[in-house]
């Protein structure tokens, strides 16, 4: 809760720092403020938290864990932004403020206890992101990304709201506890409005996390947006969307499993298939990452399919592993785009000879995304698969394993290009901030892969 207030005040502070021309102070203030927020949010670790603000929010361990990870990832991404926004325009303070405002929305999304807070959180996050997607005002791709993201976002918000309304009509409450009590009263005889409501709510949230068949905006938006914003969208925003999804289903709709599980299984299978198969055919690294993010949503949906007390933990580990690796990938991508001006797979040729450090961190990231043992990604996939197996979804696991193999193929394309294709090229200049973030993220990835116990039973 105090993290939320800190972040909001920090965003306003940055906005005014920009007004008073304190450009140099922006990045340090943002980083320090976020670290304070991280510490404050971790201090609220409490296993028997009660809802606060007239039952609007509940800062339980789930909320603390997910707000912790989102703030942590934002710190990593903001550290990568050194000199990045300055190249786009002079309104740097606004960009930082918008990222922090969207983070404030995200904190609401992971700690809501009332559907109105879910809606407000999603909107605060989305509205900031619509702007951020289009900050390259002269670039048509960025414009198109902003417009597509905006139209799709607004459309999905409408669907989500209709779902919320129908649930309210059936149960007479926006409160998660109230809805749960209504369902538990007689799970066999709930109003048909509730079923429609749940369906629409799931559709709306799937739009937000980019699960197939509601994924069609993802590749275009991720490709068109500035790379740093794409990194933010594919990590922090995705984790937050997923946390909101999981919280809703764990809290309120668990008794109606028979109704929504087929839907989620369908979405998971489609996401895996479309994400992985299309990613194979991509020629550009950024677009490949976009499709791979769709496939990772497919894996994360396993935790919802096999819903039980430890689902949140599985999602937490998977999301952390996926996000950290993705941040490394985007960090290298930003350097490459800035200095080579191209992100096709060919532009990675011979990177290992000139920039062994970059090549090593990117290799670790790709191995983690592919789910090779001794990386965090493997632990994440392992937890997901064992959850699905424990609820006897054997075909699903076999299918996902096949898809993971396809995944290995396209992730290794990058590694092969870096290490085995020779090409004369200039050395990329790696700023200190990048070295720190990439090195740290690679260490985290390995550390989680070797000692998974550290976060495997956190929540």
């Amino acid at each position, binding site marked *: 809760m105090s993290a939320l207030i800190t972040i909001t005040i920090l965003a*306003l502070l940055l*906005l*005014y720092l920009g*007004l008073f021309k304190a450009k140099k102070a922006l990045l340090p203030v943002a980083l320090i403020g976020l670290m304070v927020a991280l510490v404050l949010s971790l201090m609220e670790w409490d296993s028997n938290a009660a809802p606060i603000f007239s039952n609007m929010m509940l800062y339980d361990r789930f909320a603390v864990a997910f707000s912790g990870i989102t703030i942590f990832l934002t710190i990593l991404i903001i550290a990568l932004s050194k000199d990045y926004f300055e190249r786009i325009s002079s309104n740097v303070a606004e960009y930082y403020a918008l990222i922090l405002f969207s983070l404030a929305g995200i904190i609401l999304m992971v700690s809501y206890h009332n559907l109105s807070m879910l809606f407000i959180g999603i909107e605060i996050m989305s509205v900031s992101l619509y702007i951020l997607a289009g900050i390259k005002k002269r670039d048509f791709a960025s414009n198109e990304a902003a417009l597509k993201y905006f139209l799709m976002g607004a459309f999905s918000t409408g669907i989500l709201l209709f779902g919320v309304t129908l649930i309210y009509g059936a149960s007479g409450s926006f409160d998660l506890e109230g809805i749960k009590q209504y369902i538990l009263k007689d799970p066999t005889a709930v109003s048909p409005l509730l079923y429609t409501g749940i369906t629409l709510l799931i559709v709306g949230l799937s739009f937000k996390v980019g699960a197939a068949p509601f994924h069609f905006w993802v590749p275009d938006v991720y490709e068109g947006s500035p790379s740093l914003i794409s990194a933010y969208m594919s990590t922090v925003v995705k984790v937050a969307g997923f946390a909101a999804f999981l919280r809703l289903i764990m809290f309120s709709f668990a008794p109606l499993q028979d109704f929504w599980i087929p839907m989620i299984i369908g979405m998971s299978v489609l996401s895996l298939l479309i994400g992985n198969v299309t990613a194979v055919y991509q020629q550009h690294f950024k677009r490949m990452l976009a499709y791979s993010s769709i496939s990772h949503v497919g894996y994360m949906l396993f935790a919802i399919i096999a819903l039980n007390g430890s689902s949140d933990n599985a999602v937490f580990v998977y999301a952390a592993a996926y996000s950290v690796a993705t941040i490394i990938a985007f960090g290298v991508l930003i350097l490459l785009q800035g200095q080579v001006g191209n992100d096709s797979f060919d532009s990675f040729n011979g990177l290992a000879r000139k920039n062994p450090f970059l090549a090593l961190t990117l290799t670790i990231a790709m191995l983690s995304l592919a789910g090779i043992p001794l990386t965090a990604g493997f632990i994440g996939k392992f937890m997901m698969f064992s959850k699905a197996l424990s609820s006897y979804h054997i075909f699903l696991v076999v299918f996902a394993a096949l898809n993971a193999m396809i995944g290995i193929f396209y992730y290794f394309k990058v590694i092969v290009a870096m290490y085995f294709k020779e090409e004369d090229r200039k050395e990329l200049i790696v700023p200190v901030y990048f070295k720190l973030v990439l090195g740290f993220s690679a260490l985290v990835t390995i550390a989680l892969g070797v000692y998974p116990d550290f976060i495997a039973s956190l929540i």
Partner: protein
Amino acid sequence: MEVQSLPVDYLPILFQMLVALGFVVLTMTITHLIGPKRKTADKLSPFEAGIEVVGNARTPVSIKYFLVAILFVLFDIEVIFMYPWAVNFREFGVEGLIEMFIFMATLLLGYIYVIKKKAIEWGD
């Protein structure tokens, strides 16, 4: 209270709609039929006053209009949160007053930001 509104209760509304629609359709058809028609170039021009039309009606306007309109929409809509507060002013007491002041202060910060950014200055 009335137990239920039956469909028959809506009959007057239906009549009203039919009459309104019928009047429009009828008058338009009649004027169309009995009015004289002279289609010359002058008759079809937007202004039948003998002056040549200059330029396009949809010329670009200054972006400032747009900015002011958008800012108006944003600040205008916040009033809806003040109505419920004003209605329940006594019940909310001092706590509600403080909360509302925080809300207003946030808005005010936004407004100062807008002024400082010279978003509503008209001079060029």
